């Protein structure tokens, strides 16, 4: 890598390009850690857009990442990708800097080729990214505000290192980002939500019917969440439409009565062109140079504008929404389409889009206090510390949809991201999107259903189910309950390529597990022994294939679109503590391996 045309070298130095002065400090921390401070040396304010601070030559295949929840994180051949992208219009859902795609491909926050990893450790002020073009990667940041005369701004620290195993580099990167940012620690939740059965057709009656059914089928959901479809309009969150005559207060009380956490979906940084908030508060919107509100995206057949979260009145309004929802009893907030809060544009305050976004996120987080926030459609790194859990892939689907990898609903790519972004579980609880237990009304084969249900369980992130509960057969429920027993473990994921992954799970409810996930369209043969050392298990220990429960003789064949789950079947060591009851009777406590001490 070269910074301002010179190879990386430890120490401090200055560079001047035009009216900007760059103060560089490069230190050794498992490689290079680079800090850059920028000063406007002019005597007048200057609006700064994107800046290039360095570049490096890369190999043909890159590991790239999109900035937000839904976008892909995978291996890419940019030469081929640029042809695919040609002709596609890039919107803000795909990038906060869409103009960069005119002559290149962007990887946000981090990138790796076959030997070097480079990643920014935060995104508190600027949006840091890497732009590939013509076989070279530019190291860039987007600032998006004006600097006063002689004002200095620090851009995000950059970490660069060579690696031998990419997964290890990602792990180290996740730790470094975790150390630098304040992380919210939370436990993954098991819940039901309305989206993948009802979509926008959800009504009060159907929601209550599902609530009732949930207790009948004996699934112990911790969370029951209403998704999109209740609101009067996007932006008018506290007003329900005619399908919800008794309002949001009524629903949360019903959920609470069933001993579950009431959850609700909103898109707090989005305002539709038909909403009443749009009608009365154009001052809440992010605008272009001419003062016209910018369309952040289109959905629900409407133009959607972005909330200017640097505007104190808009922030107050946001706070009112969430304090009201909280006062109704909601304790789980799925906040969606968050990227709208970070589009470039003119705002009330002279802040960067990232700073504005974080002001909005802070407001929501402060308002809901210790309630759970699930971020979705969200810029990833700027959300750290504000969300308890984070969607890390595209919407799932009851169809495999395995061809186009651009963040559209897909059973395949939502799981692919859950695997490739598993390392992010150090920043929040990963949400791989919903699982579906249904065998009816699905385009998924039984093997694909196993992938949809068991991979999220094995990765032990959020486990949110979305089905018509009264349409589930016994077999469907049993399949889901079976998946449940693979949760609670610690997993790390090995990448064979962009379509084949191995999950190494320690201490799941069902013990230690090696799983082979084949998202590709062809057969895959592998050997358990290639991964045994990752579990510290002896070679002579036995393994069994779930759910056939047949012994695996080392070689595993994994069908296309399937997961092969190999359970450890070695000796268990129980600890035994002998005690006495008060009346002198003997009592022996037996503890599983998760406890240490005397072995039986």
């Amino acid at each position: 890598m070269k910074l301002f045309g010179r190879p990386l070298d430890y120490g401090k130095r200055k560079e001047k390009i035009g009216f900007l002065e760059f103060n560089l400090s490069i230190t050794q921390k498992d490689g290079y850690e680079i800090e850059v401070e920028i000063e406007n040396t002019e005597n007048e304010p200057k609006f700064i857009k994107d800046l290039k601070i360095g570049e490096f030559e890369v190999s043909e295949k890159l590991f790239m990442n999109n900035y937000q929840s839904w976008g892909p994180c995978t291996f890419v051949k940019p030469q081929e990708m640029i042809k695919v992208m040609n002709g596609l219009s890039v919107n803000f859902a795909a990038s906060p800097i869409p103009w960069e795609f005119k002559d290149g491909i962007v990887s946000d926050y981090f990138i790796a080729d076959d030997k070097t990893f480079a990643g920014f450790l935060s995104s508190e002020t600027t949006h840091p990214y890497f732009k590939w073009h013509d076989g070279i990667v530019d190291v860039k940041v987007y600032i998006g505000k004006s600097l006063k005369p002689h004002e200095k701004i620090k851009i995000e620290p950059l970490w660069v290192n060579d690696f031998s195993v990419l997964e290890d580099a990602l792990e180290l990167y996740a730790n470094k980002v975790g150390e630098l940012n304040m992380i919210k620690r939370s436990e993954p939740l098991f819940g039901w939500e309305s989206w993948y059965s009802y979509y926008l057709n959800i009504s009060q009656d159907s929601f209550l019917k599902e609530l009732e059914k949930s207790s009948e089928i004996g699934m112990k959901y911790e969370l029951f969440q209403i998704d999109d479809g209740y609101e009067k309009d996007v932006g008018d969150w506290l007003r329900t439409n005619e399908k919800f005559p008794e309002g949001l207060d009524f629903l949360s009380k019903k959920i609470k009565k069933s001993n579950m956490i009431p959850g609700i979906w909103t898109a707090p940084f989005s305002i539709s062109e038909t909403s009443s908030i749009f009608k009365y508060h154009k001052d809440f919107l992010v605008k272009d140079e001419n003062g016209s509100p910018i369309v952040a995206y289109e959905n629900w057949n409407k133009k959607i504008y972005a909330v200017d979260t640097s505007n104190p009145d808009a922030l107050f309004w946001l706070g009112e929404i969430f304090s009201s929802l909280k006062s109704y009893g909601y304790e789980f907030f799925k906040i969606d389409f968050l990227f709208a809060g970070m589009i470039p544009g003119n705002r009330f305050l002279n802040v960067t889009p990232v700073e504005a976004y974080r002001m909005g996120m802070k407001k929501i987080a402060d308002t809901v206090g210790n309630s759970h926030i699930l971020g979705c459609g969200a810029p990833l790194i700027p959300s750290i510390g504000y969300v308890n859990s984070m969607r890390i892939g595209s919407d799932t689907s009851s169809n495999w949809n395995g061809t186009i990898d651009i963040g559209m609903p897909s059973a395949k790519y939502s799981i692919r991201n859950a695997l490739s972004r598993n390392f992010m579980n150090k920043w929040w609880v990963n949400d791989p999107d919903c699982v579906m237990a249904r065998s009816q009304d699905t385009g998924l084969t039984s093997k694909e259903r196993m992938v949809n249900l068991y991979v999220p369980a094995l990765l032990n992130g959020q486990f949110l189910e979305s089905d018509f509960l009264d349409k589930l057969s016994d077999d469907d429920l049993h399949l889901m309950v079976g998946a449940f027993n693979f949760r609670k473990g610690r997993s790390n994921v090995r990448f064979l390529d962009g379509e084949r992954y191995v999950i190494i799970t320690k201490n799941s409810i069902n013990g230690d597990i090696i799983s082979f996930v084949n998202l590709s369209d062809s057969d895959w043969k592998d050997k358990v022994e290639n991964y045994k050392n990752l579990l510290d298990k002896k070679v002579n220990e036995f393994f069994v294939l779930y759910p056939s429960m047949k012994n695996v003789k080392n070689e595993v064949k994994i069908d296309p679109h399937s997961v092969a789950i190999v359970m450890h079947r070695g000796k268990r060591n129980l600890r035994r503590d002998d005690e006495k009851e008060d009346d002198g009777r003997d009592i022996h406590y037996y503890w599983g391996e998760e406890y240490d001490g005397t072995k039986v």
Partner: protein
Amino acid sequence: MTEETYIIIGVKNMMELRYNPITDEWIIISSETQKRPVLPQKEACPLCPGILEMKHDYDLTAFDNRYPALRMDPPEIYKADSIFKNAPSYGKCEVIMFTSDHNSSLSRMPIGQIEKLIYVWEDRTRDLMKHDEIKYIFPFENRGKEVGASQIHPHGQLYAFPFIPKRIQSMIDAIDKYTGECAICDVIKAEAGTESIVYEGEYFVALVPYFARFPYEVHIYPKRHISFFMDMTPPEKFDLAAALKVVTSKYDSLFHQEFPYMMEIFQSPVNPTMERFHFHIEFNPPKRDKVNVKWMASVETGTWTFINPLTPSDAAKSLKSASYTI
């Protein structure tokens, strides 16, 4: 637990073994003083962590029954000076907690937990057989009020007898009488690949036996001729856990209810052990259909002859198609 928390509700105290010379069997008389502990809350489960029996959190436990029919320090007996024979109630009655999860069950427990339970059964057997006077160790589970279980918290029991119980003796007699090597080994061979098989793993098979006594009776046999939990390799224990899970999970989905059963685990006698004894587990469920119970009535109790109202192959068919979780 302090003394004040007990309410003395009985005073009679009789605890001994009595021999029936007419049928050649031992009876356990147990009318020990009933000290009922008072629960901290009326509705609390005495088997949950920190309520009554377990002072703190637990994974699995085995503890002496509060009202044992047999004990290691039995009261002295008055030797009858007549044709009657009696003996001290020597032995052990233990309660075995499968999990601290109150709402679980064998059918819902993860395989790993059932596997641990198997290690506990093994450890209890190994522990208790050290006492020379113990002749038979019998773990079992009564599930459901239909078979007298008063607590839903998943648990079983274990009796360590100072004599060979009558039905075990008839198994031993049958072994002596059998002309082949081993009846269970032969049954496994004969039933291989047939419709009787409910579940087959690598090392264990679960089937509705040709000679089932109860409507939905299921037996689990190890394919290898072994006599004790101690003889099982770790993979075999894992496989048995899977078989137990499959069978109980199928029971629950059969009539969409928590299916009541008696689960009896038959190991070889101890002191001395008997290699020809083939380890096996019997599930004896009392239900004949969704609502009706098949009672142990005069014919069953008086003559030990069972009338099975359901053709075993039909039961096997229903159980085979019943949905299950692993």
